[in-house]
Every structure is written in C-alpha cells, then in structure tokens.
C-alpha cells in the first residue's frame, strides 16, 4: 500500500539500513558495557591480557552459536548441544586415556560422533516430523547420560600437550600479522569485485573509490584486533578456530544457495517446498553442520580445561541460543545473521568476564545475564512494533 505510486529502482536502501542500524546499536551497547567494566575494574578490563582472555572465553559459545544460528534460521532448534559437547569431548579424552587414540584419531572421533548424533536428531525431525524441540530435549537428557556412562562419573585428564594447544595455545606474532595481511587483501579484493559486478550487470557505475572507503573500517578492525592480541601472547589458537567458523557461517548464509534455502524454509516452509527446495535434506544438512561445529567446540572445551568431566558443557545450549537471540535471530525462523550471533556471544562473554573481575557472586551473575537476555529481546520487539 505504501509503494503503489513509486517506480522501480535498484537502490538497496530499505533493508540495508534496517539491519545495519540494529548492528550499530549492538556495537554501541557492547562499547558501553566495555567502557563500564573498564572503569569499574580499575582499568583492567580493556588491557591486551584481559581482552585475549575474553576472546578465548567466548570461543566455545561462539562456535556453537554459528551453527545454532543456521539451525534457528531454518525454523528449528537444538537443545542437546551442551550434552553432545560433553559426550564428544568425553570420547576424545577417554579415547586418548584408555583406548590408545592418537591425537588425530581423538579429534576425528570427537567430531564424527557429534556429527553422527546431530544428523540422527536432524533426520528424526525432518523425516519423522518429531518437533526439533522434543527430539533435542530428549537428546539433552540422553547424551548427558551417555557421557556419565562413558566416564563412569569420573573426570578424565588429558596429558597430550599438542591436544591442549587446541584450547590453550597462542600463535606466534608473525603468523598473526600474516593472517592480518591476507585478511586485509581479502577485504579489498572482495570490495573491488563486488563493485565490478555491479557494473557488469548494468546496475550502476563502478565506484572504486567508494569501495575502498567502505573497506577502511574492516581493515582498521582487523589490524587493531591482531595488534591487541599480539601485544599479549599472540592470537589464541581457539580464537583462530572461531574466526574460521564465523567466516564459514557468514559465507554459507550470505553467499550460497544452501544459505538462502535455510532462510526460505524458516520463513515459509510450504512456499519453499513448492519452489522446488528439498526441505528435509537441507534440514539434515544444517544439523550436520551444527554437529561438526559442536565437535570442534568440544575439543576446545576439553583442551582448555585439560580434562573431560561428566558435567562438561552443561547449559551451553542456552548460552548459544541466547547469543543468537540477542543477535537478532527469530526463534520462529527465517531471520538472523552470523554477525549478530557472534556479537551476541561476545556480549555474553563480556558480561561473564567483567562480572568475574568485579567478583560478582555466581548466583547474581546468572540473574543479571537472564534479565539482560529478556530485556534485549523486549527492546528489539518494541523497536520492531514502531516501524
């Protein structure tokens, strides 16, 4: 109704401004949280050492959130990831301790188990039409039971130093800078190619100067990030894994047919099916992806702690879901971004880290985090209603 008299144009203003506004607000909120903690902790929070810690702390939740976001976009959910994380990590540690697994075998076993479990649950959802909530609620219980059985209630330590590097290692400074250099080149090439294709398909003039200008902020962010990490002990290895997972997720959701299908299935499953999309197969695929990412996260978790315990990963599913939701994903499906989910995970990790530095009591931390989750979604809804 609002557009009856307008003509066709090819600007991409409406959507771009809406999502980026949300992103700016979230970055602003994160900035305020950081400044507050920096002040309240007596200028400890924003030091290279603590930021390096903070980044490492968010890796497990962040990597799972990347997979969870894609599952949520497709209109599904996975409540079992915390238990699956515990089970997969348990297999790696137990395998190395009691079954003579080498490093590679342990890594492959953990990831394969997580993928197999996830595919199985995804298939129950997609092909037997059992709601994902129910399937994975069952999984939450069953896989927790499995890890207790596997470890016989004990904590199994990890002795392999290489394995521990997955969670505790840092990259040498020169590798950090090499990553920064290739990322900068990647950003600039991407911007130039996008500009060129605009012209190629007759959608407007190629504005290379503008493309370079728009690359300044990401380039500055990359250099600042690597600089800060190198100012302490170098880029933590698990952070590298998180970055890889986030890039993979962003690529899948933004630039692949598979990603677009996920948004379509979550937005209107009937319309997607009638447009020739195989909803069931794509749902199994997205669960497989979440499984693989959960497997990677289980390795980081186990390596960081240095052991596998029966309660490893308890409540991780809720951290991951909360990160997605704070990042603007809709549990009804069809909406959400990887960038938002990662920012959500960073906000959650910042709260954890800052409150721990301030010696906020454990129960109080939970209450505050829960309230912030509900408030964030409440504000989002209020903002949405106005438009």
């Amino acid at each position: 109704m609002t557009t009856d008299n307008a003509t066709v144009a090819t600007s991409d203003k409406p959507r771009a401004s809406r999502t980026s506004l949300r992103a700016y607000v979230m970055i602003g909120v994160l900035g305020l949280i950081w400044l507050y903690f920096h002040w309240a902790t007596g200028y400890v929070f924003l030091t290279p050492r603590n930021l390096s810690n903070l980044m490492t702390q968010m890796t497990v939740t962040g990597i799972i959130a990347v997979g969870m976001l894609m599952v949520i976009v497709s209109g599904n959910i996975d409540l079992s990831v915390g238990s699956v994380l515990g089970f997969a990590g348990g297999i790696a540690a137990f395998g190395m301790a009691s079954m003579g697994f080498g490093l590679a075998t342990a890594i492959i076993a953990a990831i394969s188990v997580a993928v197999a479990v996830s595919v199985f649950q995804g298939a129950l959802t997609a092909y037997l039409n059992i709601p994902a909530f129910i399937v994975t609620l069952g999984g939450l219980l069953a896989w927790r039971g499995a890890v207790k059985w596997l470890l016989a209630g004990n904590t199994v330590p990890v002795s392999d130093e290489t394995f521990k590097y997955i969670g505790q290692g840092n990259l040498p400074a020169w590798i950090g800078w090499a990553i920064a250099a290739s990322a900068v080149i990647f950003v600039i090439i991407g911007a130039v190619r996008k500009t060129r294709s605009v012209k190629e398909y007759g959608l407007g003039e190629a504005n290379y100067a503008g493309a370079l200008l728009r690359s300044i902020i990401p380039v500055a962010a990359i250099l600042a990030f690597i600089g800060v990490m190198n100012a302490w002990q170098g880029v933590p290895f698990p952070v590298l894994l998180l970055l890889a997972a986030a890039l993979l997720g962003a690529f899948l959701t933004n630039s692949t047919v598979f990603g677009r299908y996920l948004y379509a299935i979550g937005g209107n499953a009937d319309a997607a099916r009638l447009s020739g999309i195989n909803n069931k197969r794509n749902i199994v695929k997205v669960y497989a992806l979440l499984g693989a990412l959960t497997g990677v996260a289980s390795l980081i978790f186990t390596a960081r702690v240095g052991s596998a315990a029966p309660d490893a990963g308890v409540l991780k599913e809720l951290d991951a879901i909360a990160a997605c939701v704070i990042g603007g994903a809709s549990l009804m499906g069809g909406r959400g971004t990887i960038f938002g989910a990662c920012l959500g995970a960073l906000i959650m990790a910042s709260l954890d880290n800052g409150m721990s530095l301030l010696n906020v009591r454990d129960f109080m931390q939970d209450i505050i985090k829960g309230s912030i989750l509900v408030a964030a979604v409440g504000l989002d809804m209020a903002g949405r209603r106005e438009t």
Partner: protein
Amino acid sequence: MPLLEMRDIVKEFPGVRALDGVSFALESGEFHALVGENGAGKSTLMKVLSGVYSAGTFDGEILVEGRSREFHSIRDSEAAGIAIIFQELSLVKELTVGENIFLGKEPSRFGIINWSELYHRATKVLKDLHLPIDPRVPVGSLGIGQQQLVEIAKALSQDARILVLDEPTAALTESEVDVLFGILAKLKAQGVGLIYISHKLDEVFSMADRITVLRDGKSVATHLASETDKDRVIAAMVGRKVGDIFPEATHQRGDVAVSVKGLTVYSQDVPDKKLVDNVTFAVRKGEVLGIAGLMGAGRSEMLMAIFAAWPGKYSREIEIEGRRVEIDSPRDAINGGIGFVTEDRKRFGLILDQTILDNITLAGLRRLSGGLITNRSRENAAASRPIKSLRIKALSPLTITGTLSGGNQQKVVLGKWLLTDPKVLFLDEPTRGIDVGAKQEIYAQINKLASEGLAIVLVSSELPEVLGLSDRVIVLHEGRMTGEFGREEATPERVMAAATAS
C-alpha cells in the same frame, strides 16, 4: 441522523497518506458497499473505525448516532455496537463453534464457565441464522465457508448494530453465498447497518443500497446503486475508462508442450476416495487451456499432483515436448520446465517478510547462481526483467514482499516462475483477492506469455475469467472430465451445465 458518520478521516504512515480526508456515512438498515482497488484505503478505513488504529493516531471524527466517539481498541468499538469480520478468519480452530462464538465473553461466575448456558445460547444464535451447525464441534472440522458463517454468528452474538464484512464471499460456495445474503437481508430488515467490502461487483450490485468508491485514499464517489452501473463504478475505481477487460487475443498454437495421461488423485484422509479420476489432457505451445469446475471438483488437487506436491497418493504419466519424464518432486517438475503459480499466495507462494528479490529468485535460484554460490548482482539483473515486464510497483527489489498490495504480491509469484524459464505454466486462481486494475494486468500478461509461445493452464473459480482467456476449456465435475469446449463453443451455459453434470 445517520447511524454512523466518519468525517474527514486522515491517516498517515511514514511517507504516505493512506487516507486523505475520507468521509463516509451509513444509515441504519442500509447495505453500503465500499469498493476500490487494493491499496485504495478500504482496510485502513475499517481499522480506523474498529479502533485497531487508536483514536489520536489519525485526524477526523467518528460519530455513532450523532455522538462523537473515540475508540482505542477493538473492545471499545465492539462496545459501541460495531463488529468487523476481517478477510482473514479470526477463529481458533481447536476450539468448538460455541467456544469461539463466546470467546472472551463466556457466561461465567467467579471465572467458572457455565457450559450448558454457553451451548444453549450458541444453539440459539445459530438457529436464529438458520445455520445447521453443531456448536459442539471444533471449528477446524468445518469447511471454510461454514467457518465464515460462524464468524458472522460470532459478530451477531454481540448485538452489533453496525456490521463490517471484508470480502466475506472469497471462500464461499454459491449456496453458502445465498445463505449469507439471506442472513444479511434479514439483518438489514432489523435495522442493522452493513458495510460490505468486495471486489465482486455482481454481488455488490445485487445487494447494495449505496456504493462508495475509494481511490488513493480519497472517497471519489458515492452513488445509489440504482443510479449507477458497473462500468461507471469500475471507471471510478481505476480512475480511467476501461474497455473490454479481456483483450481479444488469438494465439498461434504450436506443438504439444505437455501432456498428462491417466491422472488420478486420492484423498489424503480417505485413502480409497478418488478426488480426480483418470483425467487426460494436453496443452500446446502458445495455448491457454482453461480448467473450469465448481469447488471440490478437484482442480487444485490435479495441479498439485502434476507438480508432485500432493501429500496423498496419485498416479499419472507426464510427457513434456513429447518426452516421457518422471516427476517425483517439485524440483523434478521445475527441471522439466513446469512452473506452478499456486493458489493462496500468502500460504504457498511467498515468504512475506523477505524481500521481493529473495522471493522472485527462489525457485530459479540454482539456475541463476550457476552453481552452489549465489551472485547478488546477477540475481538483481535477472530479477529486474520480470519486475519491469510485470510492472511490479515497489520502491526497490529489496522492499519487503508483505508490504505490497495483493496484485503486486501476485505478480511477484508470477515473476518467480518466469525466472525458472518454464515451458508450461500452471496458474491456480491467479487473480483471487486482487483488484480490477491488477486483474487486467495479469490477464494481459497471460496473453502476452501465450503469444510468446508459453503453454498455459489456467484454473479459476471465476467463469468469465476462464472463458475470456482460454483457447480451450475443459470442465471437471467431482474429479471427472465432463466437457471440453473450444473458444467459440464455450458459453457460460454450456460450461455450467457440464460443471454441474446436468
């Protein structure tokens, strides 16, 4: 003194003036039709009247029986005796008919519902309307037409003096329409004022006392129905004189594009029941084949089964351009060159909160991407062709589809299928619920596509539409083919006779 008067209503949304000084009056016992193209402001006006848009968010005045009123919610307007039946049903399918009728107004004491009282009163309401509906059955078990009648019963149980009906007959069969009109005539006699929004001008002229035409948020004309005619109303709606709605077109027919043999479709719920029984037909390139039939004749089921999207059992043989093809999924059908504009665009056709671009490229995404990785610029370039040729009116391809008018939404669905480069296009009720102007544009597109050599199969409940566009018409009655007519032989009488198997 009029029963209802709305004076100089102005309602603005960011960047657009949806209502621009509309005045409207309703006498008691009057049947007042409100017509206009989609986007003309009819629904907005009714939302102002019902308090969905709270007093204060618009300018102007609402008077009920001469008294100025301010409504801040639907509850307020209901208390003033205004009941609105919106286009989308607002019944809870899991609850019974009686529970729905008294939803929010259950006869109760200390919060405990008096069930016998509730069903007693529900029975009475239904009986007063001569509706043979059991108040104890769940609403979801009724047909869509009966649900509509329950909705009306619900409105009347509140002793409404002003009843607004928004496209109430869109889903009704003819006999149900008769029941509805009988009820409305009775209400009229009792002094209830009726505001009736419809695109079906035949209905409007058969019932209305007065007709008000809205266009672009203004009331452009109010006439006594007896002093105007259809052509003048249409001219006022579209703001221009319309000639023949169906442009005369002769199509050059080519080779057979698709042939369907032995199509049999079984019911999903009753496995042995045949909804479509051994139907065989073929369409040539450049030909428009119309499929006529009454509700329940099996037309939509037939298309769903050809497209491999029917949830129950079915069997058929399909040849495309003379070659036998196995179609076991919608993807197979698309790859084989079949496009399928489904009925009910909101449910089956579109992802309403995604952009035009996302929707229009969805079915052809693999082809447009040339692999597994998408290319936005290439999609944009491809999408701009149907957006231009179908004249989809929107600020940009990134406009959210749900904000478009019905006609433009339907064009997006059509565009989606054109981007799959089909050899044959199946259209199921392509103009349902869209305004006259948009209908005409869709008709012109159908003719244009046929003249470009596309084979088209058109299913529609509107007989003039089928007869006006088709080169050939086949008629179904209870799943069997009961007639086939060329353009010249297809008269409304013959087709109707075949459709009722008389």
